[in-house]
């Protein structure tokens, strides 16, 4: 393949990806406005916790973990798929990730930021959060390093920082591309962000090594972070939580929900940013296969939990799971089964995988189903544990629903902003992929 036929490919990739950059259309502004309204509702709801007390939320004994912790687990989970697609598939050299890895990485960064707010919200008195940070103080009160809640502080902070670094390093060559296509103040901003990237073979040499190493570091990290989140539950003695299966079960659930959220984000972006050439039906089909695979693991985990509860012969454990399926929150459990275990199985059909409207419905269903799953795990176990005298129920209040809505507003607002200021597809990687597929390097 000669240069004359290759150059338009490169330029077309740039034009396609950068076409919508920094130029907000009416639809985009309307979407951002909607996200800001949701965010404002969340802020108003949260202000009630600051101004009144944590008592405005529905959490109380015995269900002292409610929507805030559900949201935390939910958003951390969504963040995981980004690392899976960008880092793990990179290590496995799955080339199809190139079209979607940037969006997945951005989702990771934004989702982990959103998740990180919820332990703060749940604290109530957020101004005391520095108690969790280990530093020598006159209080001489140090955090308990045996507590999973402190493991979380380290795990989530590490995950957020590593995700941002991974995202940024991957962006540098593309920021240079934007720099060289722009003028004036925009050029100055992107020049600063691109750090003077020239694309010399020396720079590419170190870039490839750094990117690979960051991917290699992010891979065990992603497994560890959601394992740590699961240990928030498993290390306690609550029936239904105290289980060795929790770490892999949570990691699988995280990747499952993340894959679904990627589809939920990708489809509209592909349509409104005109990325049909780069993000094809095949990409969705592959994501659907991952979704089905993770769904099967999740379904097995549901089964294993019930089986272990039965096999132990422990009355309290057995009651906990009976209550999960047939108690007050039983309908939510069955909704979870339908959305997470049955609905994704329909994607085994190749015809349905290529029907993108149907795929979208399934993905939205899984996102809802995974939120419900966290509700079922957290609330049912707490509502009826050892002592029937202390049993109780929990229903979220308007404040909690408002904060949930606000978190979606924040997530989509941050994502919309990132998608407007950074290239949504990895241009450099895409060019390299186009070149390797065209076989030019073989003739070089």
């Amino acid at each position, binding site marked *: 393949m*000669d*240069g*004359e036929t*290759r*150059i338009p490919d*490169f*330029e077309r990739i*740039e034009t396609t990806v950068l076409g919508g950059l920094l130029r907000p259309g009416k639809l985009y502004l309307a979407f951002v406005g909607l996200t800001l309204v949701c965010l404002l509702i969340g802020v108003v709801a949260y202000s009630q916790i600051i101004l009144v007390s944590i008592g405005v939320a529905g959490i109380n004994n015995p269900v002292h973990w409610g929507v805030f912790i559900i949201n935390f687990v939910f958003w951390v989970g969504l963040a995981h798929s980004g690392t899976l697609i960008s880092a793990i598939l990179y290590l496995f050299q799955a080339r199809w990730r190139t079209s979607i890895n940037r969006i997945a990485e951005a989702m990771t960064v934004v989702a982990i930021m959103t998740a990180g707010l919820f332990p703060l919200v749940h604290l109530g008195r957020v101004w005391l959060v520095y108690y969790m940070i*280990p530093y020598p103080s006159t209080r*001489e*009160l*140090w955090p*308990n*390093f*045996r507590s999973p809640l*402190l*493991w979380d502080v*380290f*795990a989530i*902070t*590490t995950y957020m*920082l590593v995700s941002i*670094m*991974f995202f940024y*390093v991957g962006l*540098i*060559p593309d920021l*240079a*591309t934007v720099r*060289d*296509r722009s003028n004036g103040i925009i050029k100055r901003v992107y020049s600063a962000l691109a*750090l*003077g*990237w*020239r*694309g*010399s*073979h*020396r*720079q590419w*040499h*170190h*870039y*490839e*090594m*750094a990117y690979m*190493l*960051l991917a290699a*570091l992010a891979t*065990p*990290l992603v497994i*560890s972070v959601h394992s*740590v989140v699961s240990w928030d539950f498993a290390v306690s003695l609550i029936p239904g939580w105290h289980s060795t299966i929790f770490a892999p079960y949570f990691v699988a659930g995280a990747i499952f929900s993340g894959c679904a959220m990627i589809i939920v984000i990708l489809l509209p972006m592909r349509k409104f940013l005109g990325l049909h050439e780069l993000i094809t039906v095949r990409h969705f089909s592959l994501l659907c296969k991952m979704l089905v695979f993770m769904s099967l693991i999740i379904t097995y985990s549901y089964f294993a939990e019930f089986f272990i509860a039965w096999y132990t012969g422990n009355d309290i454990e057995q009651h906990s799971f009976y209550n999960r399926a047939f108690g007050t929150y039983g309908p939510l459990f069955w909704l979870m089964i339908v959305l997470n275990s049955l609905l994704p199985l329909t994607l085994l059909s190749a015809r349905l995988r290529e029907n993108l409207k149907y795929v979208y419905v399934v993905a939205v269903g899984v996102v809802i189903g995974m939120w419900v799953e966290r509700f079922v795990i957290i609330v049912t176990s707490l509502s009826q544990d050892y002592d029937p005298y202390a049993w109780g129920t929990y229903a979220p209040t308007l404040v909690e629903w408002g904060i949930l809505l606000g978190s979606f507003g924040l997530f989509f607002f941050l994502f919309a902003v990132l998608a407007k200021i950074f290239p949504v597809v990895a241009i*450099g990687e895409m*060019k*390299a992929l186009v*070149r390797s597929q065209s076989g*030019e*390097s073989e003739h*070089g």
Partner: protein
Amino acid sequence: MGEDRSQLLAVYGSAVELTNAVKLMLREGHGQLEVLSPIPLPELHELLPQRPSSVRWFTLIGCIAGAFAGMGLQVGTVLHWPLLTGGKPALSLPAFVIIAFEMTILFGAVATLVGFLVNAKLPPIEKEWYHPGCSRSDFALLVWHDPAQSDSIERHLRDAGAREVNRGGSGLAQRESVNHE
């Protein structure tokens, strides 16, 4: 690079032309070359060999430092301010592995980033030759050479298909098509 050396920057429209130009320059005995490209070019690894990236050593040292820092923080803390809960020993090493692991990854990732920036010379301390097309679809070859040979080298570079050739003196002459980042 040496102050008494001149530079020529030749711009090509494809990686194939660039690779041919690199081969030509090497054949002519001009070994001080630098390639600028919008994508990594694996075929140049043989022509312009480089030592394995030292970024990995940054990563290794960062990871080891992180593991010791994470474990040290916890062990030091519980020895100085023991907080006894649940009848467990203050020095609960298995539980401490988790934070030590997270710190291993964090320090390793930060060190990787630092190693990348240091090795790739980002941001550059001194001005370097650059062509804005090289982040898009152009490929450039930068040749350091004896000033007396400028004309013959430029001819060779153009023969290899260069679309444009920019000359610099021993300093960094400003040219319209060349950005100094």
